[in-house]
C-alpha cells in the first residue's frame, strides 16, 4: 500500500496569554493509504486542528510544525501558497465542522456549488454545472433541490447546511477527503445514506478518507481503523471493529458516556480525566 498521506510528528502551538506557547497538537503521526481512517476524541483534543494543518488553513496565530508532511508525493511543508490553494478543494477536500461559517452567508447555495464545480472544470457551461449541482444535492438526500439551490445559507436547516458542504466537496471528486463531523446534525436515516455515498466514493474513486466524529458507534461501524486523541496526542490506535474492546481507559470512558435507547434515566457517567493520559500513549 503506497502512502497517500504521511504525517510525522505534527505539532501545533498557540501563543499563550502571558507569553510562551501552548501545544494544542503534540506529535501526531499518521500514515494512510486509500482507506477510511476515523479520528475520535473529546472536544478540544485537536482533531479539527490536525485536519486544518494538513490543508494549511489553521488560524493565523497557530504555529504548525512537523518533521514531514507529504500528500501523494507533494511535500506539504514546502509547498507554495499557490500549490496549496490548488490542492485544497482540488485533490484534498475538507468538509468543515461548522457548515454555516464555511458557507458564504450572502451567496445562494446553488451559486456556491456551481462555483466549486467551475473551479474544478473551467470548460463546463454554467447550465451543465447547475444541473450537476442539482443532482449532487439530490444524491445527498436533499428534498426539492431546485428550491434549495435558490436559498441562502441561513434559510436551510442545520442538517441541510451540512449536506450542502458535503455536496460542495463531493463535486470536486478529491483524492483525499477530510470529513469533520459531517453527520453530527443528521438523523440516522439520512446519515446512513451519506455514509453509503462516502463509502461508494472511497471504493469507486479509490479515495482516502479521514473521518472525524464523536459518534463512536458510527466510527466503529464505518471506518477501517481509528485514532483516539486526547489532549493533542494519539493515545490509542485500533482497528475500528475492535473499538468496543478498547484498552485505554479514556476510550472506555468515552464509550460509557453514551446514553442508550431504553437505558436508565439516571445521570450519565462522565469522564474522569487522568493527568497521566496526557503524557503516555501510542506513538503509532
Amino acid at each position, binding site marked *: 500500500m503506497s502512502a497517500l498521506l504521511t504525517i510525522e510528528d505534527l505539532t501545533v502551538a498557540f501563543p499563550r*496569554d502571558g507569553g510562551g506557547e501552548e501545544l494544542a497538537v503534540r506529535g501526531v503521526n499518521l500514515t494512510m493509504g486509500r482507506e477510511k481512517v476515523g479520528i475520535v476524541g473529546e472536544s478540544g483534543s485537536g482533531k479539527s486542528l490536525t485536519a486544518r494543518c494538513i490543508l494549511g488553513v489553521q488560524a493565523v496565530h497557530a504555529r504548525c510544525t512537523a518533521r514531514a508532511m507529504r500528500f501523494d508525493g507533494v511535500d506539504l511543508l514546502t509547498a507554495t501558497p499557490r500549490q496549496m490553494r490548488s490542492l485544497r478543494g482540488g485533490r484534498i477536500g475538507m468538509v468543515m465542522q461548522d457548515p454555516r461559517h464555511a458557507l458564504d452567508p450572502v451567496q445562494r447555495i446553488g451559486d456556491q456549488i456551481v462555483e466549486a464545480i467551475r473551479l474544478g472544470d473551467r470548460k463546463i457551461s454554467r447550465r451543465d454545472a447547475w444541473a450537476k449541482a442539482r443532482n449532487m444535492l439530490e444524491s445527498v438526500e436533499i428534498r426539492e433541490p431546485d428550491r434549495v439551490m435558490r436559498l441562502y445559507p441561513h434559510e436551510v436547516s442545520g442538517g441541510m447546511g451540512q449536506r450542502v458542504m458535503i455536496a460542495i466537496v463531493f463535486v470536486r471528486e478529491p483524492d483525499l477527503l477530510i470529513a469533520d463531523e459531517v453527520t453530527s446534525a443528521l438523523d440516522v436515516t439520512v446519515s446512513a445514506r451519506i455514509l453509503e455515498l462516502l463509502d461508494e466514493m472511497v471504493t469507486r474513486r479509490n479515495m482516502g478518507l479521514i473521518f472525524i466524529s464523536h459518534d463512536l458507534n458510527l466510527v466503529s461501524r464505518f471506518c477501517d481503523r481509528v485514532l483516539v486523541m486526547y489532549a493533542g496526542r494519539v493515545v490509542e490506535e485500533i482497528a475500528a471493529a475492535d473499538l468496543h474492546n478498547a484498552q485505554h481507559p479514556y476510550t472506555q470512558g468515552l464509550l460509557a458516556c453514551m446514553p442508550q435507547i431504553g437505558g436508565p434515566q439516571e445521570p450519565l457517567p462522565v469522564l474522569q480525566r487522568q493527568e497521566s493520559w496526557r503524557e503516555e500513549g501510542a506513538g503509532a
Partner: protein
Amino acid sequence: MSETAAPRASALQARLAELSRFARAFRRNPLGMVGLFIGLLLILAAIFAPWLATHDPYAPDFGGRLTPPGAEYWLGSDELGRDIYTRILYGSRITLFIVALVIFTSAPIGLFMGVISGYFGGWIDAVLMRITDVFLAVPKLLLALAFVAVLGPGIVNAALAITLTAWPPYARLARAETLAVRNADYINAIRLAGASPIRIIARHVVPMCTSSMLVRVTFDMAGIILIAAGLGFIGLGAQPPLPEWGAMIASGRRFIFDQWWVAAMPGAAIFLVSLGFNLLGDALRDLLDPHAVRRT
C-alpha cells in the same frame, strides 16, 4: 480544553490579552511594521514640527532661492527661498488634519447608512442603497472637484469634498457585513432577550463591522492623501502659502528639470506616506480578514 496560564481578573485584562495577542501576530509581519513605522513617523512629524524644523516655513529668503539640498537646506529650498524640509514637516500637519477629518466624518456616515440598510432591509435598504449608488456612480475626483468649485477652495472644504466621495464604499462594506451577521443565531439570541433594534445594532452588529472597516479605512488613507494632494495641486485644496504637499509640487513643477528637488521632495513624502498606509492596510487585512489564511 486547555486552561490559560493565569485566570483573568477583569474585562479590561481580557481586552488587553486580546490586544497583545494581536500585537504579537502583527509583529511577525515586517512590511506591516514598516507601514506602522511610517504612520508613526507622520504623526510624530506633525506633533513636533516646530522643534524639528530648521527654518520658518513661511518667511521668504530671496537670497537662498532654489538652493539644492545641502547643509543649509537639507532638502533644498523653493522659489521663495523657504526650506523644503521644514515645509514638509509642517505640511504633515495639514495632511494628517485632512485625513483625520475625512475618516472621522465619512466612516461613521458610511457605517450608519450601511448598518441601517443591511439590518432593516426592505424599502429602507432600497432607498439608502440607491442614494449610495448615485454617489458611487460619479467619479470620485470629479465629485470632489464639483463640490470644491461650489464651496470655494480651502482645506476644510477639500476634506468635506473628499468625505462626500469616501463614505459610499463604507456603506457598502458595512451593509455586506451586516447582511452576513443579521441572521446569525447570536443576534437572534439577543432579540430573544427583548432588546430593541437600536441596541442590537449599536452593541452587537456594529462591533462585527469594525475590523473590516478598519482595514478599509487604512487602505483609504493612502487614497485620501493622494486626492488631497491632487486638489492642492490644481489649486482647489490648501491655498498658498500653506505648505500643503500637493500645492508644493504644483509650485515646483515649473522648475522640474533644473531644480527637481522643489517638486520631488514633497512628491517623495506623499509617496512614502501612502505606501506606508498601504503596507499597514495589507498587514491588518492579513490579520483581521477571517477569510485570509496563512501557513507559517
